[in-house]
């Protein structure tokens, strides 16, 4: 039995926004400084030797990939550690499901908030790298929308894991076995062409690969290239959104 209200989800989203306004300073290092460090180390350090990849300056190649991963980390931290603390330690979710809000409202509100964080961090990073001339096309203006849709995917998967995990310690596995491999093998730092075919096939089934491709294509003005990736992300976002709602209801309403 599903019980979802868009207004309820919006109220929960608003709550998270209020909390974020008070705490965002603490999220800047992991969500913003880290990709900047990667950009400086690889884009400038390695870029000094490796001038071009796929016809793009290496720093621009890496910067667009890192914008996509900043969006991924924004959603993922929100729906793993943040959600877990509120769920298990603060027990805020237990309190909220005795108000008119349902478990589904909480799940969807949390996913939409995670997606919002994707937009915030992905866009902020993009604005900074745009100063270095990395963004070349007005199509880049559509990227916040891309970050939102992909944020829904990353948030839904992360929140589903949070609803299932018996312990906060298991998040290290979530990161080591899922987030980090995606980060390394989604074409952020190098194209996958040179790797064995099965790596490319595996990458196709992970979301970050598509976000990286779409981000790069739109930032450099080839929207047609991005279309299959955007379709992939939209379909998976819609398909996965109900998953955390079902799992969270099971945890909150017995």
């Amino acid at each position, binding site marked *: 039995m599903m019980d979802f209200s868009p207004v309820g989800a919006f109220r929960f989203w608003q709550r998270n926004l209020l909390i974020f306004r008070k705490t965002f300073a603490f999220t800047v290092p992991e969500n913003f400084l880290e990709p900047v460090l990667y950009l400086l180390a690889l884009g400038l350090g390695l870029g000094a030797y490796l001038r071009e990849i796929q016809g793009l300056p290496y720093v621009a190649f890496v910067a667009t990939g890192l914008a996509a991963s900043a969006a991924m980390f924004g959603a993922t931290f929100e729906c793993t550690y943040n959600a877990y603390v509120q769920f298990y330690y603060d027990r805020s979710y237990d309190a909220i499901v005795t*108000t008119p809000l349902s478990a589904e409202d909480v799940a969807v509100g949390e996913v939409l908030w995670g997606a919002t964080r994707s937009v915030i961090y992905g866009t902020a990073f993009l604005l900074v790298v745009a100063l270095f001339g990395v963004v070349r096309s007005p199509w880049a203006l559509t990227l916040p929308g891309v970050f939102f849709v992909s944020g829904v995917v990353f948030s839904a998967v992360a929140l589903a894991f949070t609803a299932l995990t018996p312990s906060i310690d298991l998040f290290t596995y979530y990161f080591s076995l899922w987030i980090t491999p995606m980060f390394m093998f989604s074409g952020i730092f190098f194209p996958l062409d040179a790797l064995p075919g099965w790596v490319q096939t595996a990458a196709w089934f992970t979301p970050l690969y598509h976000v990286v491709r779409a981000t790069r294509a739109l930032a450099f003005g080839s929207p047609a290239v991005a279309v299959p990736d955007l379709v992939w992300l939209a379909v998976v976002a819609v398909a996965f959104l109900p998953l955390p709602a079902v799992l969270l209801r099971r945890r909150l309403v017995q």
Partner: protein
Amino acid sequence: MALVEAEELVKRFGNLVAVDGISFQVQEGECYGFLGPNGAGKTTTMRMICCTARPTAGVLRVFGLDVPRHARAIKRQLGVVHQAVTLDDALTVRENLVVYGRYFDLTWEEARRRADELLTFAELEARADDRVSKLSGGMQRRLMIARALMANPRLLVLDEPTTGLDPQARHALWDRLRQLKRAGVTQILTTHYMEEAEHLCDRVAIVDHGRIVAEGPPRELVERYVGREVVELQVAGDGALAGAVAEQAAGLAEGFEVAGDRVFLHTRDGEELLHRVRALRLPLEAVVLRRATLEDVFLRLTGRRLRE
């Protein structure tokens, strides 16, 4: 009108029967209590009323609406104080109230105004801008009550509202709850403190192992099952003699219970009984005459004490 009606209500978790066929009604304007030890099924019953646990069998209606089918409509008129502290630690005291009001569709302005009123009610004005983790246990509990009142609920549900508080904080909380009752707010609360049930509740259900073993106004229950007074005998030594002492003294009383090294004699005339017990010259460490309480009723009906 009955705000809550339960008929043969059952809740099982797998093989475990948490609530085992209870029936009760809570009338508008009254304070109804569930008194019982840990594990009796009190929280589970409250959770079913709040629509966060689905009944396995039986009927449960809140405001005349079926649980859990009309969960949203029921929860809109409910104020809930959970057994655990469930405040948002990232938010201040005032923000906790305002955000909660928004879940009930209060406008920001209404929510802020209501929060100010309730900060006064809870005597937390001075702490309004502190984070909740800085509050004492008693203050957090008062904040939880204030939060539950944000949307003017028709029914206030309190799950062990004073457990873990020191006596002073407990009395401060009782004052608030009595004040609300005078204002006409219907309350349903659980507790394992018999003093709390006697102080606050118009009617109590004594629960044990998921069942209601007795129900009624506290004084009436005490009268019915125990009488007016209790002479409490503390047997000398390690309590091995308690059975023998009880046997000798039992004839003098209207009823008796044995728990560990203590014997409780039930009577309507304590002075007289005290006199006659002393005359027996039993091996006793202490003899006390006191008013009979719900604790005595619980012991009488279940053979156990409320808190062991």
